[in-house]
């Protein structure tokens, strides 16, 4: 039984928090009495659930899955009917007293026989972790029986936050899936890469893949948007890992570098400038001159096309002010996209950002005016927005009602976003959304009427 999170998860050579005293490796602690993000289970489920031929069983009382499932917006082409289904053992009092390993076994057996998935993820949670259930043993036994990976995921919520859950999921993939199969030759292109930390929200992956394909880069595996178990199994055959907007999954990229010698880079595909930069970084890492030339030509054309398409929006948006409040990497990656549209970011949330993220923010901050918001308290958010006359707040769903109840235009840029915002097409969607929201006469009407 694994109660505590692996120490290794908190050892991140590329993170500046590394090496500080244990209590302070506190990307993992939260203050009692505050409203925080999700737990390790949440984080692990987000990473693993987009795999479209695997299913996810949450071994827990009803709350862990029952209260909140079917809410992700990861898209998949020809996903199996079950891939977004919620499965749980719904442990009851008897299960606590007498143990529920048998129940779990029966459950897995039932869903295996009925759905014939290519893999099953079994999530350990707080209660079975406390009662000491051997889900590792159950998984091992049934993996041997059914000949598909049945993967224990040690994501009990008290171990830590969502970020930690991402790592735990990455570790589960690394230990049980990656490197377990070789790709058939047809699947390999001239240049093969993996995208890590891309969940294809609203089809964002499709836009990224489209751009890369045009240049001649083959995305062999995506971890995990629109992916299959098999595809992740042979991901070790790629020559480059591209980690997208995810500090947490750098952990996985680092492990893959150690074991398979695959180098990795961190990129963002939000906005035109970032997409251009990502494409150039990718081809430079691959180092093929012909490819680099092709990429440069492509970027030139796409930049011109996109600039033409967003011209009208940009004219309206230039100089308008945005308050950005989102997690970690997006605190800077979105600034780039917003700058592309002529928008001025007056403040950005840095609660979950690392020092490196903060340096990146400064890179985009031409006048040195961006306020770094450490305090995510909604009252503070509204205060800053009003003081600085923000035209719009861009944040995650939990701040939606904070903003609109205060009659400040709002756009969701987290997982609930309404459209894909990546790559060249994405910036058009983003421009259109921000434009319509700021321009909407409703806010004026309500301010007058209230």
């Amino acid at each position: 039984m694994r109660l505590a999170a692996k120490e290794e998860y908190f050892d991140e050579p590329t993170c500046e928090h590394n090496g500080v005293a244990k209590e302070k490796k506190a990307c993992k602690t939260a203050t009692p009495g505050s409203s925080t993000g999700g737990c390790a289970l949440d984080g692990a489920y987000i990473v693993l659930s987009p795999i479209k031929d695997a299913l996810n069983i949450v071994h827990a009382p009803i709350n862990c899955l029952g209260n909140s499932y079917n809410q992700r917006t990861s898209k998949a082409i020809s996903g199996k009917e079950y891939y977004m289904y919620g499965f749980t053992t719904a442990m009851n009092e008897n299960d606590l007293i007498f143990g529920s390993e048998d129940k779990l076994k029966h459950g897995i057996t039932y869903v295996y026989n009925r759905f014939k998935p290519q893999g099953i993820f079994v999530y350990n949670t707080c209660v079975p972790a406390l009662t000491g259930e051997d889900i590792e043993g159950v998984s091992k036994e049934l993996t041997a029986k059914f000949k598909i990976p049945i993967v224990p995921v040690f994501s009990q919520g008290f171990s830590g936050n969502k970020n930690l859950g991402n790592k735990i999921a990455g570790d589960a993939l690394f230990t049980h899936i990656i490197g377990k199969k070789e790709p058939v030759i047809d699947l390999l292109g001239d240049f093969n890469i993996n995208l890590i930390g891309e969940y294809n929200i609203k089809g964002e992956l499709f836009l990224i893949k489209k751009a890369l394909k045009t240049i001649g880069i083959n995305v062999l595996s995506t971890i995990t948007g629109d992916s299959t178990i098999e595809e992740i199994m042979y991901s070790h055959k790629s020559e480059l890992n591209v980690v997208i907007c995810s500090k947490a999954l750098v952990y996985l990229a680092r492990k893959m570098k150690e074991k398979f010698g695959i180098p990795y880079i961190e990129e963002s595909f939000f906005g035109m400038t970032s997409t251009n930069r990502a494409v150039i970084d990718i081809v430079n890492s691959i180092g093929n001159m012909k490819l680099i030339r092709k990429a440069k030509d492509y970027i030139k054309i796409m930049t011109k096309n996109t600039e033409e398409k967003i011209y009208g929006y940009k004219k309206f948006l230039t100089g308008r002010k945005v308050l950005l409040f989102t997690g970690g990497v997006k605190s800077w990656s979105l600034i780039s996209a917003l700058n592309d549209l002529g928008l001025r970011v007056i403040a950005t949330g840095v609660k979950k950002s690392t020092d490196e993220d903060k340096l990146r923010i400064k890179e985009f901050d031409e006048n040195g005016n961006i306020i770094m918001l450490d305090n995510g308290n909604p009252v503070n958010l509204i205060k800053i927005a009003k003081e600085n006359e923000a035209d719009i707040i861009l944040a995650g769903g939990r701040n939606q009602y904070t903003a609109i109840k205060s009659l400040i235009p709002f756009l969701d840029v987290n997982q609930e976003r309404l459209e894909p915002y990546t790559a060249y097409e994405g910036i058009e969607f983003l421009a259109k959304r921000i434009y319509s929201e700021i321009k909407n006469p409703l806010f004026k009407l309500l301010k007058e009427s209230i």
Partner: protein
Amino acid sequence: MANLIKNIEINPLKTSPSLGAAVFFLGLKNAVVLMHGAVGCASFDKVTLTKHFRENIPIVTTALNESGAILGGSNFLISGIKNVYEKMKPDFIGVVSSGLTETSGEDIAGFIKDFKDRLDIPFANLIYAGTPDYKGGFEEGYIAAMLSLLTETLKNETGKSFKNQKPDKIKRQTSVNVFCPSSFTPQDFLELREALDYFGLKPIIIPDLGLSLDGHLDKRGYLQTTPDGLGVKDLLDIYNGEFNLIIGLSLKVTVKNIEELTGLRTYYFPNICGLKNSDKFFNLLSKTTGKKIPEKYKRQRSQLMDAYLDAHFYFSGKEIALALGIDLLDSFSSVYSEIGANLKLGISTKIIDDIKYRFINLCEGDLDMLNTCGNVDMIVSNSNAKFYAESLGIPLLKAGFPIIDEVGHNFKHYILYRGAVNLAVESANLLNKE
């Protein structure tokens, strides 16, 4: 039952007692819910409730970590309570436990009592509902919170908050204590309030989700706690109540308890949906107040009878499957039975024999059992049932919890005569869609 064979819930209908208790506390004014557990317990619930009600949902966490889970979480709980009060100054803090904190066997009630006993400053009303996630479901949690609030308020044993406040014995308007099921939409609450107003009764609705979560915009803008609801002062009026009104099949178990706690005469209705049940409800109000049934409702009654006639053609030869919590299953099936619909399958989180006769097949289970209903013409269930509605090509009438993919259900209502009209015509139109 099929569940025993498969030993796993696939797309559960059930949600947890902690969620039910949280929803109860959200019906109190200037309240915050403090969930004692890992961060996820609060976060998952907050996300779903925010999407369902489309309102800010004040749920915070005690953020229990490894050491708290293993060595005891009282420090987390107490500092959580203090921090919430410091930051938000609520009138109520509803403390809800989780599977995690209950498994480790902590005496949460004891901690809270100690904390209260040591208080010598004005503080928020601390109400604790013990809601182990492995025992019961949404309705049980809602009831646990309800009884806990009543006990705190009426017994005055532990609650310092009420110690120095003598209930106001001067009668102004006849008030009535109303207990509604968790299945009521905010608009249902408001409709019920209006009906009672018509009879000159001042309703003390416990909890009042109509006032807190109906979605209304005012000058106050964003608030950290619930904007409205059952307030501290309203609680004192429970003493002044003329009688208790308990609505909801799931609340049947509370009738004796509430009668004893309040010492008031108690009337119970399994539901107030459809013609017969609404008649009973209005007749009671008329009888107890000595007032005639208002013209408005007489009119609505005759409109309902007419709407039933208009709609009934679309039900004939059609079959319906319902997957709903027990209260909504009872309410909706009352209306559908009156209109002569065939209820082929009813799925709920538990079975109550009283309503079995309305269904060809009634069982306890998950949404996956919709797969067994074959070719029905309409499914009535929450947003998660769309997997089945879409793959089977059957229209889905969205009701229950959660509804996260469409707006406006806060304003829908299904109780009393007009509510039955709504259900009859919405259903008929869906059944008529080819």
